[in-house]
């Protein structure tokens, strides 16, 4: 527990430093891009005044301290694009991303268990090969292109689903499919392989030799063993879900965090970018902790190791 807290704190500081450096190291003058928004000619004196005003002439450490203080209060300043507080903008966008990510996760898990299970059960058969092709293809499809094709097919030609936005739940369908197809392939492959590996383990043979029935062997012994490798990579690959979400949000015009960040980057709206990096970073940290926890629940030897091991 304490180790997690320390790690979390350490990571938080690293993120704030990265966030701080974003402004410091960005090419071009941040102030200039702030003023440019109004497209009015500005004088050097005006720039200098604003710099002084914003405290940009203070020593770096002092500036960082001020930035950190703001972050801790949840204050990233105002967005240049809308003039509203950055946190308000993000809070508005967050639910969309969360919904997209959640729905995608559910769909990806379903696809993984169905296809991974089938491929393992019929190892070496045509089904197994078809699943293999699906995995290679799914991982090779450019998500945005696949998304555009889906829009063309189901929204433009068949008028079945909305093409963009998430005004109705139906709007969630196409983006979810596009994203799930992109992230599921590694899970499917891992589940397939670990199911096959698990069913050949000695302890499965031992349980069978005791006369335990096949359903119990599968659900209690084999499946649990093959979930462990799946969970280990979950933490690492959830990042790819968020990364993919950015592309999908832009493709489908979903007003989520990813789309907001891309727009902010184009407009050099630094407050939004800083908040985006720090919040996404921390979200991933928390997810990783949850993954770690479920890993411990799945494999008692992790948490009990050392304590009583002979």
């Amino acid at each position: 527990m304490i180790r997690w807290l320390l790690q979390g704190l350490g990571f938080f500081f690293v993120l704030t430093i990265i966030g701080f450096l974003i402004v410091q190291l960005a090419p071009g003058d941040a102030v200039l891009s702030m003023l440019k928004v109004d497209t009015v000619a500005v004088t050097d004196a005006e720039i200098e005044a604003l710099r002084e005003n914003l405290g940009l002439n203070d020593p770096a450490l002092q500036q960082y301290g001020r930035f950190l203080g703001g972050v801790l209060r949840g204050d990233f300043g105002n967005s240049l694009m809308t003039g509203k507080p950055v946190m308000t903008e993000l809070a508005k966008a967050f639910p969309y991303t969360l919904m997209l990510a959640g729905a995608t996760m559910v769909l990806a898990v379903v696809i993984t268990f169905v296809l991974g299970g089938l491929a393992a059960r019929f190892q070496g058969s045509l089904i197994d090969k078809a699943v293999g092709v699906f995995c290679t293809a799914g991982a090779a499809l450019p998500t945005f292109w696949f998304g555009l094709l889906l829009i063309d097919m189901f929204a433009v030609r068949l008028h079945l689903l909305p093409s963009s936005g998430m005004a109705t739940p139906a709007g969630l369908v196409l983006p979810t499919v596009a994203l799930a197809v992109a992230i599921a392939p590694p899970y499917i492959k891992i589940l397939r392989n670990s199911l096959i590996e698990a069913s050949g383990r000695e302890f499965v043979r031992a349980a069978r030799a005791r006369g335990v029935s096949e359903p119990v062997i599968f659900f209690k012994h084999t499946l649990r063993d093959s979930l462990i490798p799946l969970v280990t990579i979950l933490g690492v690959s959830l990042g790819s879900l968020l990364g993919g979400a950015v592309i999908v949000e832009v493709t489908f015009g979903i007003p989520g965090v990813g789309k907001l960040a891309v727009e902010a980057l184009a407009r050099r709206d630094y407050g939004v970018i800083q908040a985006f990096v720090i919040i996404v970073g921390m979200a991933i940290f928390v997810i990783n902790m949850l993954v770690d926890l479920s890993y411990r629940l799945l494999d008692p030897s992790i948490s009990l190791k050392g304590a009583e091991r002979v």
Partner: protein
Amino acid sequence: MPLLEVSNLRIATRSGLPLVKGIHFAVEPGEWFALIGESGSGKSITANSITNLLNASLIRDADAIDFGETNLLNASPQELRTIRGEQVAYVFQDYQSAFTPYYTIGNQMHEMLKAHRSMSADERKAMIDAGVDAVGLDPQLTTRYPFQVSGGQLQRLALASAVLLNPKLLIADEPTTALDSWSSNLVLEELATIKQATGCAILFITHDLRIMNRFADRVAIMQHGKIVERGSKDQVVLHPQHPYTRDLLASIPPLRSTEARLPVYGEPPRIQVKAPAKDAITDRAAEPVLRASDVVKVYGSGTRAVDGVSLSLPTGSCLGLVGESGSGKSTLARCLLSLERIDGGDIWLQDQHLNQLTGAALRSARQRMQLVLQNPNASFNERLPIGASLMEPLECIGRRSPSFLSVGDDPRKVSAALLDLVQLPPEYLDKLPNHLSGGEKQRVSIARAISAEPSFIVLDEPTASLDVSTQARVLNLLKDLQEALGLSYLFISHDLSSVHFISQHLMVMKHGQVVDDFDRDELFDPYRHEYTKQLIDLFEDLPQQAA
């Protein structure tokens, strides 16, 4: 009528490679039937095939597998499931996998009872506790996870769960091979007690002829998927008919024999080397090549892995170190080789004080020592051809050829000559390690160790992972080389009989300390340490076969 009768059993891989080639055998009710064979003989898959526990990659076929009234060959999956555990139970070699690591042992014993009986949880618990108690363990152990229990205890728990429902046949597949001889003995005695108490028959799969000799009623010997000899235990041990059986029996170094070589098939090597100069030997013999006094090695948690060991290895002789796994003998070896820093004591290599050396001096001292390891697979970089691995010590030292060879400086000729010393053909130089058998790799290891003419060689369980018949040949080879080249060995093993066979002087280690220390011919002296006497009992000689 036999309890189990297997007729014309054949097992092959899906690609058609036959592994078991039509064997017949029968197990009578209440008898201890031993199926003997070396690795690859097909004995374990034979055991697994009886209740169809084979991997999907293997195909089984037979005329019949009759168990009582039932032909197991035609039994439905449902019938088989009820027979397994209830009438035919198994104990496997890999005790760590006897139970799934994610659930407690008790949970899995309950699971087994649930699969066969409708009983209340309390009834099940009473039954489990009684069963665990019967193998001499605390029923509390069942609340633990498998990884929280020691190997010997785990195997006894596996045994307890196997006999919970009083099966008529217990199939034990090398149940003691992965255990040290101590725990192994406990498990075997437990097995004998159970057989006595329940009257079940035991189908015992093993490569160990001593266990067979102690317990078996009847025996079948398997080689390359066929049964080559069968009969009562006494008949097979005293009057072996098949050459393979005779070879196996001859492979075990008897403690009471003084023969210089084991009488297995195979020519002694033609070792053609320049004999070391006579006076050089007598000169060197004056002082020991290696001396250690009060060596201590402490590990992080405060465990004294080596606790005040002193020894002396006379030039040109072999010092044997006997001990169970965990007795500290391998740690001691690494300390002596200065591969690990010691926490106390002194080590001298000839006149050099090893623990004071650093940097280049340490490196050049290390070059005068060599090592042959237990695991032949881990002893080689699997991506390098044998020739490159073989020549590594010579190359590092910067020498072209060992002085005992007279084949010139051509590396190819030198390496071929080295292989010839260990009876391998020169073609092996270009092979990759995994194309060699374990015994062959161990021979290359030995050639590599002697190539740099070290002052002494540490042999750390060099035969432990080999089959008995290969073991005997490697032991013979080591002895022949020692004689021809005047080598000094430190031979480490848990196997008293091979240590006794090869060493002039023996030391027995327990818990990091040397508890006994004696010359080869003093083994049976009445004043030996208690622990040594117990070891002698475990390595009891087989009865001498009639000439």
